[in-house]
């Protein structure tokens, strides 16, 4: 005779198993519709032939990648060499995004620290204030920034009124303006994860380190930074990745020389001269680059964690 306990046990397990599949459906749908499908679509489009007024012809072609990497001269009749135009756009974008990340860290870390060390009942107010600007659309905010720093805008007026400068500063349409835009747009993405990490930090650790003869600077370097590192990494990724693909700040604040990857992709889909397969190919290359960087990071931390 089979024991009743065994019976009910196995039936409970099979019930659990059969219930698992329908419960997973929403996740699969989410991942499929919002992740796999768009990326797959983009991958496919990057290998199609362009239609002259936007759109694609369903015919396999490597033209998009060829345009990105290979230079055959203005009329296509010279020997093939490496095309630097787009690689330079990438390099400049990486530099811009890198600087924006460092700036956000330099300002965001002390800000997060400040909020996390307030009494618990006032922390919520500070976090709320950080998010308030985000109730306004990013486009509007970027345009406002353009207005603020233009030649006869409020910033230059104020500086000239105060006698700090005699000529208006040419801020608009410079790399500086793009940098300001990126910094302003993505600062909260640094503050929030760093705040979450610092909030969990136990300040007795700092006391223990100071008690064991560590100076303030050493406490920061040896104790605080390693412990809150996951928050800093998360913040850096959340600033760096969208900055790399940003197009509003370079389009609205930068000049012709401040062209970034985001603007390049944007152009391919927006204008009648656009090239959908090329835009898709640039997106694929950008995504691969980000993935490679993430994998390198993951491998370096995995190596560190081995004893």
């Amino acid at each position, binding site marked *: 005779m089979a024991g009743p306990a065994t019976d009910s046990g196995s039936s409970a397990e099979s019930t659990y198993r059969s219930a698992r599949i329908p419960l997973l459906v929403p996740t699969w749908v989410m991942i499929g519709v919002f992740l796999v499908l768009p990326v797959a679509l983009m991958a496919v489009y990057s290998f199609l032939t362009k239609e002259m007024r936007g759109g694609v012809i369903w015919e396999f072609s490597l033209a998009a990648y060829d345009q990105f990497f290979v230079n055959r001269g203005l009329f296509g009749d010279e020997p093939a060499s490496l095309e630097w135009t787009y690689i330079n756009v990438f390099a400049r974008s990486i530099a811009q995004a890198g600087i924006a990340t460092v700036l956000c860290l330099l300002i965001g870390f002390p800000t997060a620290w400040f909020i996390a060390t307030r009494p618990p009942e006032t922390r919520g107010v500070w976090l709320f204030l950080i998010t308030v600007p985000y109730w306004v659309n990013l486009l509007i905010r970027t345009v406002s920034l353009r207005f603020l720093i233009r030649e006869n805008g409020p910033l230059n007026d104020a500086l000239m009124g105060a006698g700090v400068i005699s000529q208006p500063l040419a801020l608009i349409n410079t790399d500086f303006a793009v940098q300001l835009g990126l910094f302003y747009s993505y600062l909260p993405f640094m503050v929030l994860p760093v705040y979450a990490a610092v909030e969990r930090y136990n300040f007795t650790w700092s*006391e223990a380190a100071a*008690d064991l003869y560590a100076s303030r600077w050493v406490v920061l370097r040896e104790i605080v930074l390693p412990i809150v590192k996951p928050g800093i990494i998360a913040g850096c990724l959340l600033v760096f990745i969208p900055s790399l693909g940003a197009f509003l700040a370079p389009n609205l604040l930068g000049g012709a020389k401040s062209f970034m990857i985001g603007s390049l992709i944007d152009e391919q889909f927006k204008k009648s001269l656009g090239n959908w397969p090329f835009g898709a190919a640039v997106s694929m290359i950008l995504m691969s680059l980000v993935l490679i960087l993430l994998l390198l990071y993951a491998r370096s931390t995995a190596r560190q964690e081995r004893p």
Partner: protein
Amino acid sequence: MTNAVEIRTVTKVFGTFTALHGVSLSIQDNEFFTLLGPSGCGKTTLLRMMAGFEEVTQGEILLFGQNIAALEPNQRPVNTVFQQYALFPHMSVIDNVAFGLKMKGWPLEKRRIRAGEMLEMVHLSDFANRAPAQLSGGQQQRVALARALAPQPKVLLLDEPLSALDLKLRQAMRMELKQLQSETGITFIFVTHDQEEALTMSNRIAVMSAGHVQQIGTPRDIYESPNNRFVADFIGETNLIEVEVEAVADGQAQVVLPGGHRITTSSAARDKGRHHLSIRPERVTLGSPGVGLQAVVEQVIYLGTDLQVLVRLEGGTAMQVRLQNAARITVPSPGDAVGLHLEEGAARLLSD
């Protein structure tokens, strides 16, 4: 000889709250000294001021004769064992123990060896490469101890280090701490609210309450000759009985109990009038009625090792008596008339 620590009329004010009111005490070198008191009495504040985590509002703290007010925590030759251990979560056990040595500039090889010795001392050699989170509470506590002792501080500060452990472990750690102190010869300053801990480990105890030191003395002094009601009541169990003092001289007093019975007792009080008498329940024996203090048994509570007998004295005062649960005793029953005999040192007249 200079004292290890000298606290001179130290006051600490937090905003509008005064945590310490002009506290003075001296701690000798190689002493196991305990600051004992209920939460909020200022004992942890005093310890944190010695470590340098809190500034002294008024007064001074001397360490081996040197005023340490101007020194940052990292410049003071004292180390702390924290209540919640505060082990660095991103470092292995051995790196935690070696941290203070690293900060003092010891070379890698030397500090590895010394940290290894410290781990051996606390019986955790096998756990050197573990992360702190992989250890039990008791093990983490021992790592914290090894970490604080590794740089050979002149004074070790312990902030309720056993309070997070369960009872059995706490008792075992008491013995270990006491032994470590005598082996290393380092002055231990131990903060606790647990009177049993204080009595079993300390050379001397300072009993604190509401920002004042109530009494300083050996465990025996504190327990057997409490000065005031707070100390008598906080340390162990006692009967506090209001009495009339007839005569007092040279630390001895003649008092009248509520029932009219007169006894002579050691005294912390210096004047006549109404004072409180402390009578330790285990120093009282029950005899036949007619001899000693007359009382009636009201209740007998069985406690295993002891029996707690609640009696009412002539004159209506309630008292408790502790009898050891030995084979020779006769267990009284409620309603029995008994005569109480106060043993030598059972009673002490308090100053308030």
